[in-house]
């Protein structure tokens, strides 16, 4: 990791670590812990999406589908077949990886609008499967009786325990992602984003890298889905529809696509917007998301992180990026 990132990492890590204690001091916001658990789960999805969109320059409107594949695999195996959740989770991840590979190999040959449409279509198909396979998924009315999580026989029961578990995993994923970015693989991804032909001519197997990062994003989303399942212990297809895929894209864009910190920031912010501040105006939710998406795409394509990084003017710079050398 670069020095700046190491600093940010430490500060964010400490903030996240003391957050439950802080929240406990202030009355009336104790449920913020719960919001942050969701934010952590979504962060896993968005980290993968940030690598794919911000770094490799490929769009996916199917992240909710991979999130759902992980969630339903965990749900079905544990609730219907009494599997241990920790065994079901890797099965979900492997399944998501396999599906992502099968779809990704042909889809990532497409560009721009075509890729967006293909991933969108795929996401909707998966959502239809979740709704139609009633025998397995419970269909639109949902699936109940999903067990919670236990570590070595010790049940994770309190919100605070869940909080530290989820954010611990987020930090591991973040570390892994940073390592990838600041390496030969990360350089290859950024090169693909900027000049795909030149990258290929310099020896980067561009097709393979695009698929790899797509699969990685799918695996992160599936793992997030598994944790989501065991946390809420209830599943319904509406948590994995197109709107959720768009929401994930929005989270990544609001914070700043080309920065993992941006993805994290955007995810936390929008989870609060969705789970907390918009609850009162539930009917306006879709409209507000649309408006935010439009404003960000038009006026702040580099996301909030670019404003934080160089002041308001920085938002305009098209080359703002994390740090300097490699």
């Amino acid at each position, binding site marked *: 990791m670069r020095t700046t990132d190491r600093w940010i990492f430490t500060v964010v890590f400490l903030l996240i670590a003391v957050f439950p204690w802080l929240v406990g001091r202030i009355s009336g916001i104790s449920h913020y812990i719960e919001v942050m658990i969701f934010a952590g789960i979504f962060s896993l999805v968005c980290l993968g999406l940030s690598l794919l969109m911000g770094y490799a320059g490929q769009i996916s409107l199917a992240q909710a589908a991979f999130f759902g594949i992980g969630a339903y695999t965990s749900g079905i195996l544990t609730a219907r077949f009494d599997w241990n959740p920790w065994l079901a989770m890797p099965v979900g991840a492997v399944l998501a990886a396999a599906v992502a590979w099968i779809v990704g190999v042909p889809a990532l040959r497409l560009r721009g609008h075509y890729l967006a449409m293909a991933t969108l279509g795929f996401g909707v198909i998966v959502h239809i499967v979740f709704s139609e396979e009633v025998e397995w998924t419970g269909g639109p009315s949902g699936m109940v009786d999903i067990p919670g999580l236990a570590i070595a026989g010790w049940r994770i029961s309190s919100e605070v325990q869940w909080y530290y578990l989820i954010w611990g995993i987020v930090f591991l994923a973040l570390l*892994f992602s940073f*390592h990838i970015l600041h390496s*030969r693989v990360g350089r290859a991804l950024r090169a693909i984003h900027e*000049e795909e*032909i030149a*990258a*290929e001519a*310099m020896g980067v197997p561009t097709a393979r890298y695009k698929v790899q990062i797509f699969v990685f994003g799918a695996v992160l989303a599936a793992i997030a889905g598994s944790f989501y399942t065991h946390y809420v212990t209830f599943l319904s297809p509406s948590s994995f529809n197109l709107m959720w895929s768009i929401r994930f894209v929005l989270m990544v864009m609001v914070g700043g696509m080309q920065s993992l910190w941006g993805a994290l920031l955007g995810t936390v912010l929008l989870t609060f917007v969705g789970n907390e501040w918009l609850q009162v105006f539930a009917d306006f939710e879709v409209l507000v998301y649309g408006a935010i998406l439009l404003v960000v795409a038009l006026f702040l394509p580099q996301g909030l992180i670019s404003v934080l990084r160089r002041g308001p003017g920085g938002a305009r710079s098209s080359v703002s990026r994390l740090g300097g*050398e*490699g």
Partner: protein
Amino acid sequence: MEHPARQPGASILELNDIQMSFGGVHALKGINHAVPEGIIQAVIGPNGAGKTTLFHCISGLLNPTEGSILFRGAEINGLAPHRIAHLGISRTFQHVALFKSMTVLENVMLGRHSRTRSGFWATGLRFPGMRSEERNIHKKAEAFLDLVGLADASRLQAGTLPLGKQKILEIARALATEPRLVLLDEPAGGLNMTETEELGVLIQKICQTGITVVLVEHDMNLVMDISDQILVLHYGQYLASGTPQHIKDDPAVIEAYLGEN
């Protein structure tokens, strides 16, 4: 098994009847040519002669409609560009194609891609082998920047360099792939006189390290100064080939160039 011994003067690149057509347009109409190893080979011709198309074919960005390309005796047409890069052909682009928001150093480091191996897991989990490899990439990239004289700029964003330096950086990136053959597409385009002279020296220096250079260039002074052999194309066809002196006096070549004006 570095490089199997080859007889001196053997050709490193052979073009056999290369044809390339887009729809109904024939950009290359059957090019035959052999490039001996270790020389500076220039390819010249008026605009639209098919020089860049030829480069695209050799580097695998285009697949020739007909004909075969042999690199060190083995056929390479139909291979993916990254495979060809791995075999030892690298290139620069007529319109600079740097990774503009990456630093100068990172651009050259990317050139090391095909000579290094740490994959997804190795980098994500920072295996010890990956770390030493990364240090190595760093060191080698700096050495190549030193070679072309861009060491001072290594931390700048590539897109912020003046055009002349960007062209040089592209050469450094190409060299970082450790090619046996490097294709330079109009390296002097947009360069001033001093820069062009320095470029000539650099190209000769590259050739002295044993790398064969193929050069598409409009600057005739540069071409005549440094080339060992020149191939002239005209509307996708072979027009002439020979030493600079020979080409200078070739009536067909003079005709083609005068005809353009």
